[in-house]
């Protein structure tokens, strides 16, 4: 009896999850994105003087999984540059969804706007569902640990050993396209990601947060948590889209193994370091 009830609840939960994802996938609004692109272009070109390269390496058709490192705390200017780059290169007609922490999509106004951009609540089911529709997805495996990494680790790929993106690529049979960027960690001054403090305060259990970052940022000065975001400084952002990696072809059944993880992270670290070497006078040039 009790087992029956438990199963029924699980089934309902599953259905509501699928409905939630379906609603988020439907929320992507190409005309809204087209309308917003000029403003993004201004920010990207004038404010961050972004340099983006490598989109020609992306297959012209079919779903791919972009795997990126991201920076800049909760403001992630590099995500904006990427979404601008993808939507202008391939046109708003080619669907792409970016996976974000539920704290982003559940914000009252920001969350609604984000969903119209194709930002969906992170989770393996959400990403699978998006890929099944033929759309591409953008994931940041390192999540909060990556974007809140301290300034001293600004040129480091920090995926925290998370291999969910590889399981996803294996299941969906799609190639991984790594994307690396530098500059975001100079748009403010992250002092510590506060992983120990987050564990102590049980933020992981409460809000799926592994970090409690402390930074110096405008307009707050000392900024604990970065929950309200901040005003990013106009540091120069460089971004490169790398050669696709077909983890299924390269690693077969072991596409989600530690070896595959190391392979992807090593490729990305190599390119990130090269990109960082291009910086002449950070954060300006």
């Amino acid at each position, binding site marked *: 009896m009790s087992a029956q009830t438990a199963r029924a609840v699980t089934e309902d939960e599953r259905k509501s999850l699928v409905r939630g994802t379906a609603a988020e996938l439907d929320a992507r609004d190409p005309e809204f994105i*087209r309308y917003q692109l000029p403003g993004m272009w201004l920010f990207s070109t004038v404010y961050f003087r972004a340099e983006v390269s490598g989109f020609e390496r992306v297959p012209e058709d079919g779903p791919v999984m972009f795997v990126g490192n991201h920076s800049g705390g909760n403001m992630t200017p590099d995500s904006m540059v990427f979404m601008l780059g993808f939507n202008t290169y391939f046109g708003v007609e080619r669907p792409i969804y970016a996976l974000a922490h539920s704290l982003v999509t559940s914000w009252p106004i920001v969350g609604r706007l984000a969903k119209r951009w194709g930002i969906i609540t992170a989770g393996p089911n959400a990403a699978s569902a998006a890929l099944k529709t033929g759309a591409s997805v953008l994931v940041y495996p390192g999540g909060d640990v990556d974007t809140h990494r301290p300034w001293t680790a600004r040129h480091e790929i920090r995926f925290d050993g998370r291999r969910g993106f590889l399981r996803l690529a294996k299941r969906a049979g799609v190639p991984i396209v790594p994307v690396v960027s530098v500059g975001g960690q100079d748009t403010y001054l992250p002092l510590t990601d506060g992983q120990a403090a987050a564990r102590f305060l049980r933020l992981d259990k409460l809000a799926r947060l592994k970090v409690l970052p402390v930074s110096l940022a405008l307009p707050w000065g000392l900024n604990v948590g970065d929950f309200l975001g901040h005003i990013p400084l106009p540091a120069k952002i460089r971004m490169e889209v790398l050669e696709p990696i077909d983890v299924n072809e390269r690693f077969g059944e072991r596409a989600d193994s530690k070896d595959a993880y190391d392979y992807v992270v090593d490729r990305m670290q190599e390119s990130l370091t090269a990109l960082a070497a291009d910086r002449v006078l950070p954060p300006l040039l």
Partner: protein
Amino acid sequence: MISITRSIIIDRPAADVFALVDDPARYPEFFTGVTRWESRSKRKRGPGAKYRVLMKVGSIEAGGTVVVTERVANRLIGWEAEKGISQRGRWDLRPIDEDSTEVSLEVTFDLSGGPIGTLVERMAGRIVSRNLWATLLAARRLVEEAALSG
């Protein structure tokens, strides 16, 4: 929406100029800012021919798919966007006399985006305008070089 036209006089007959602009495979070579102009249809020339096109504008490359809407030999070629950035463009060749041609290159694009869209159209328009002028200078050089070697 913003429309940009640049013109140049090339001291060669219209047919010589047309030989160059009628070969879109060569656009990435001399169309400044264009990073890609690839055939996407069986039809390689004339109305209905489709191309995947991209132009570098500021921090990004913008483009989409265009389809040729008009082609009159030695006179004009026009295209229009099917996907991506909403735009159209055309080469217009007007013979001045037997040995010289006025060549115009026109690009019109519409970014939408309200007042910010209009501002960005003007900023991007300046980039496109210089690209078109550089393209015409390159076209003049190529047409004159071809005449010399031919």
